[in-house]
């Protein structure tokens, strides 16, 4: 049965939108649905957002709800945390993940800690969004992927919308969550396009999703890495290899069940991670596979990670520092004990 029940003409259409538009629509919906919601961050108002995500929202919702902040990451993130505890539902935008380090004290020592430290008295329903990832020649202070690093912190949830649907649907669910949610938007995705039904709505934050079923091996990816994994799967198809691709979607909590179910069947896994290899989320996933599916595996887990360098500016060096579909293909072939190209 179709979603519309098959009765008469469908009333919904499926326009093509950009990831940026999907995020903007999610913010607009949240502001419309709940008067406690407001957006706060650097240049979200008059400038329209560093990545133009919030363009037009100031005119539509006014200065009280679209709040430009000074360049005081620690304090506007902390103020978002306080406002959340004070009964509001703030969306705090940090321009880029590297800047979030100036607010790390508030994220870790306050947002992630208060519920436990207060014996369950004070939950922190704050949502913090930020751009992440490299690939735009912005060099070593604007290009890193630290979402896996944030996933180390108990008390917060870390989500990485990789699809138009998740860009549209995760925000509302995050705002309804009683605890802090960090949303990492890979900046290369903002211009990507895809179909989005007009009635698209909230989606769960947690739970990995099989994006492409396959039998021979499992490619695990998140955020900006998902497209590369899907591209690699197409390349593998040309090699006669049927790869399953999983979008992790949420890095904390990780969906062990979906990961283990897939690798338990395919018996091979390649993890794609834009972050640095040492101590990365891919290391955590590989460890969990080792702990829980060791006897199911036919090959060592492979990882395709960001090179362990501060991100270089020059385009060819930056590309060399980031995972590529070709590297994923080669790693996949290694798990199959087949020579690379």
């Amino acid at each position, binding site marked *: 049965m179709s979603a519309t029940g098959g009765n008469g003409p469908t009333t919904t259409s499926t326009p093509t939108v950009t990831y940026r538009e999907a995020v903007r629509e999610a913010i607009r919906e949240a502001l419309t649905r709940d008067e406690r919601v*407001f957006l706060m961050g650097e240049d979200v108002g008059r400038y329209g957002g560093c990545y133009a995500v919030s363009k037009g929202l100031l005119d539509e919702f006014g200065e*009280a709800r679209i709040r430009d*902040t*000074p360049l*005081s990451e*620690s*304090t*506007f*993130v*902390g*103020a*978002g*945390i*306080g*406002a*959340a*505890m*004070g*009964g*509001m539902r*703030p969306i705090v935008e940090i321009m880029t993940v590297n800047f979030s380090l100036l607010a790390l*004290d*508030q994220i870790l*020592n*306050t947002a992630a800690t*208060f*519920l*436990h*430290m*207060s*014996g*369950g*008295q*004070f*939950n*922190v*329903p704050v949502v913090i969004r930020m751009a992440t990832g490299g690939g735009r020649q912005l060099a070593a202070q604007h290009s890193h992927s630290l979402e896996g690093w944030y996933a180390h912190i*108990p*008390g917060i*949830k870390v989500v990485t919308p990789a699809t138009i649907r998740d860009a549209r649907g995760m925000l509302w669910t995050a705002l309804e*969550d*009683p*605890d802090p949610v960090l949303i990492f938007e890979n900046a290369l995705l903002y211009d990507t396009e895809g179909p989005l039904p007009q009635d698209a709505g909230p989606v769960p934050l947690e739970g990995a999703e099989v994006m492409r079923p396959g039998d021979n091996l499992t490619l695990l990816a998140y955020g900006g890495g998902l497209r590369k994994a899907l591209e690699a799967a197409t390349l593998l198809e040309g090699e006669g290899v049927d790869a399953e691709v999983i979008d992790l979607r949420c890095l904390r909590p990780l969906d062990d069940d979906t990961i283990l179910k897939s690798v338990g069947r395919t018996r091979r896994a390649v993890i794609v991670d834009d972050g640095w290899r040492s101590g990365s989320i891919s290391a955590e996933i590989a460890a969990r596979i080792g702990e829980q599916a060791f006897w199911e595996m036919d090959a060592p887990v492979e990882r395709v990670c960001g090179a362990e360098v501060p991100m270089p500016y020059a385009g060819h060096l930056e590309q060399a520092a980031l995972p590529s579909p070709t590297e994923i293909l080669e790693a996949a072939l290694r798990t199959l004990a087949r020579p690379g190209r």
Partner: protein
Amino acid sequence: MLLIRRFEEKSAELYQEEKIRGFLHLYIGQEAVAVGTLDVLEPDDAVVATYREHGHALARGIGAGPIMAEMFGKVEGTSRGRGGSMHIFDAATRFYGGNAIVGGGLPLAVGLALADHLRGLQRVTVCFFGEGAVAEGEFHESLNLASLWKLPVLFCCENNLYAMGTALERSESELDVAVKAASYEMPAWPVDGMDVLAVRDAARRAVDAVRGGGGPYLLELRTYRFRAHSMFDPELYRPKEEVEAWKKQDPIDGFVGKLQEADLLSDDELEALKADAEADVDEAVAFAEAGTLEPVSDLTRFVYSEDPAEEGS
């Protein structure tokens, strides 16, 4: 003030007996600040305090028993034994810690005030911090943002002259905290923090102005901690004569003296008040002793909310 004094003296004893562990920062000498300030608050105002917060918690009306039980690590404590001395919390009185990152409470206070501002509530958030916090970026960021957005925060800088062992003049180029605040267009003035009536008078005026929509205010409460920074502090950084000189300005003795000069307090009444404080503290210790330990099976509770419908306060 008598209750806080006795509570803190007893806490020091219990620390020696190893009933209380971890860090213990005593408030002795600074009682007039918390008592004078919090006396003028309404029940639904908010308080953000530091790791030296037993006095603030008691002055806010949180029971001595649950505070002591918290320091004993008991489940009957204010934070179920998960916070300890530095992290007293109480939702009922809107007491938001117990924050042990110096300066970290200021952005939080700004946010609580922002929520009230956006909700149109006439509530005030009082934020306590030491003079050591003025070296933190969050002090400057928070004063700026609160002033820029005209938020209802009363910043209370408790200047006890030493950030642990570092004297103000060894860490600051500008020693006058009120001058710093003035650069953020914020009314600010110094107050004799050893005089509970002066503190209350200043707090009354500041809280009324803040509640009336005048934006944030800052009070620099000049005070002195009679005891060491924590129980591990040999006090090498300040001369004994200085400590003794400040003890002559004991806030309790000073207030008692004024009351007696005005014939408002007899010796018998004073002794009765002291006995009451003693009895309250004894009762608190008994409550803490009788408390229970949370089962280890509950270790990972409260990392995430247990009821998805749970709302922020």
